[in-house]
């Protein structure tokens, strides 16, 4: 893919994004109050399982832990073999070889690697790009990059555009998700502007957070990002994906996010090619709710393995 370009006028347009916070809050409140019919809930719970990027991003990660995670991602619940696998596993670059070995070469489960000096992004650009290439060479099929928030907050938006474009180029055909760390960006307007910038620079997915700081994903932030995706689609016809990550732990929250997606972008985005949850504990709660709907009783969390 050729390197994307943007002009000062484009950057000025990104910077001048305006958001009415009150109407965002009202919209989110309305979505949260929606009630779902039982069979829709069943369908959405299964869909949510298929949208999880099952994540482990800890200093104490080991190849064995990653292998266990890959097995769980491939077959989330042994007693329900017809459940879909999760969309992907998400690991540090050093764990990519172990994950690729566990998944094999024909797994439907994607292998996402965070890269570019995750979570802070505080490495020289050359090192960050070589990390991306290393992860892809060892089997990653998706790259979750972080942007340089420091550059962004000091006004150097052009630099952030260029780093995303450079990472896009380094990724080639591999899926690129761009993490903003929205909890550090201050306002919904900055988030809207950065969303436009990342999409223009070639992001396949825009992603809220690293999961390392609080607040992580929230519904107002997700709504603003979805709305930018919508505007971009109406303008260009290109469908960009969305990945809220961090802080989504319950099935109930996941369903609310899916309602938000359906109402903002429509059913075309209700697929794991365009919407993901970056989460670790969410999967277990989804499985608990699925067991509850099948068996009629509320299963103990202790019944499901903790990863």
């Amino acid at each position, binding site marked *: 893919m050729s390197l994307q370009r943007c002009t000062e006028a484009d950057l000025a347009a990104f910077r001048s994004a305006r958001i009415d916070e009150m109407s965002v809050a009202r919209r989110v409140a309305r979505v949260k109050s929606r009630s779902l019919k039982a069979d829709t809930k069943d369908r959405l719970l299964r869909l949510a399982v298929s949208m999880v990027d099952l994540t482990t991003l800890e200093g104490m990660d080991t190849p064995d832990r990653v292998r266990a995670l890959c097995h769980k991602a491939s077959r989330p619940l042994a007693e329900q073999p017809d459940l879909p696998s999760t969309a992907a596993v998400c690991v540090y670059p050093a764990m990519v070889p172990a994950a690729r070995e566990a998944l094999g070469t024909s797994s439907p489960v994607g292998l996402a690697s965070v890269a570019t000096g995750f979570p802070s992004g505080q490495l020289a650009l050359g090192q960050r790009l070589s990390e991306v290439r290393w992860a892809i060479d060892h089997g990653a099929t998706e790259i979750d990059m972080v942007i340089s928030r420091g550059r962004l907050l000091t006004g150097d938006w052009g630099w952030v555009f260029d780093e995303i474009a450079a990472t896009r180029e380094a990724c080639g055909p591999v899926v690129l998700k761009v993490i903003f760390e929205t909890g550090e960006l201050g306002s919904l307007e900055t988030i809207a502007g950065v969303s436009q910038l990342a999409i223009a620079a070639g992001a396949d997915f825009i992603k809220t957070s690293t999961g390392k700081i609080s607040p992580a994903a929230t519904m107002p932030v997700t709504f603003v990002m979805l709305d930018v995706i919508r505007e971009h689609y109406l303008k260009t016809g290109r469908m960009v994906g969305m990945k809220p990550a961090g802080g989504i732990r319950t099935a109930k929250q996941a369903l609310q996010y899916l309602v938000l997606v359906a109402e903002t972008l429509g059913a075309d985005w209700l697929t794991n090619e365009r919407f993901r949850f970056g989460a670790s504990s969410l999967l277990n709660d989804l499985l608990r709710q699925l067991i509850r709907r099948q068996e*009629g*009783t*509320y*299963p*103990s*969390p*202790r*019944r499901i393995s903790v990863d």
Partner: protein
Amino acid sequence: MSRLGIHKTLKMYVGGSFIRSESGRVIAHHSTAGDVMYVPRASRKDLRNTLEIARKAQPGWGGRTPYNKGQILYRIAEMLEDRAGAFPAPKAQVTTAVDRAVHHAGWSDKIVAVLSSINPVSSGHVNYAHLRPVGVVMVLPSAQDGLLGLVEAICAPLLMGNSVIVMVPTELSEVAGALSEVLAVSDVPAGVVNLLMGDVPSVMDTADLLDDLDTLVVGPGTLSPERLTASEQAAARTMRRVIRAPSAEAPTDAMGLGRLAEVQTVWMASGGPGVTSGGGGY
């Protein structure tokens, strides 16, 4: 100048907070002063949420030293004594309840020694059995036992390191409200003791479906025989313990307290005959 009366809203006590039912539903009931009082009516969702809160709180409480648990149980007695005059119950009943809390506080650092044992085994091992908490205990105290029944329902599982959900009979709602205020200032960590109010049999329909609940303690006369049998049958599905408790007139004895704990047996190589290497195991 006349002054408007300040009426207290009766609330449940969950996770260290005083809450209404999420359903907004209430049961009208007469208070001791003869006024109509609206008792929150715990819903299925309230019970599910409470169980999650109690589950989270249990390891922290169970991990405290027996001495510290005893101190906190004693603090419950102190706070109860302090408020005896303001309790919606006769003074004599409060005094008995205070004494009961002190009784259990005293057991806290002794019960493990009484119920643990070193077991004779035919190999070169030291084999001992000791206690650990059973987990989350739901208690249905009897309305006839009054304040004493509530204190017993709380203190006995607490001293064994469990977290507790008390399903308060409507007749005891007012006194349970006052007891919640005692618990809130007794250094009992949030979520370790939770008091729900409302219609007991309908809440039990949900409790029977909650696999994460470890033990159910049923006071005399709280459930019909058929309802109790249904709960026992549901409990069999997940090996939940169901204890038919006697009246709270006498404190739960050592064997009764033992039923609020799991026994863990530990084998340790002692280097005797038949043992070639050291190490321990379960």
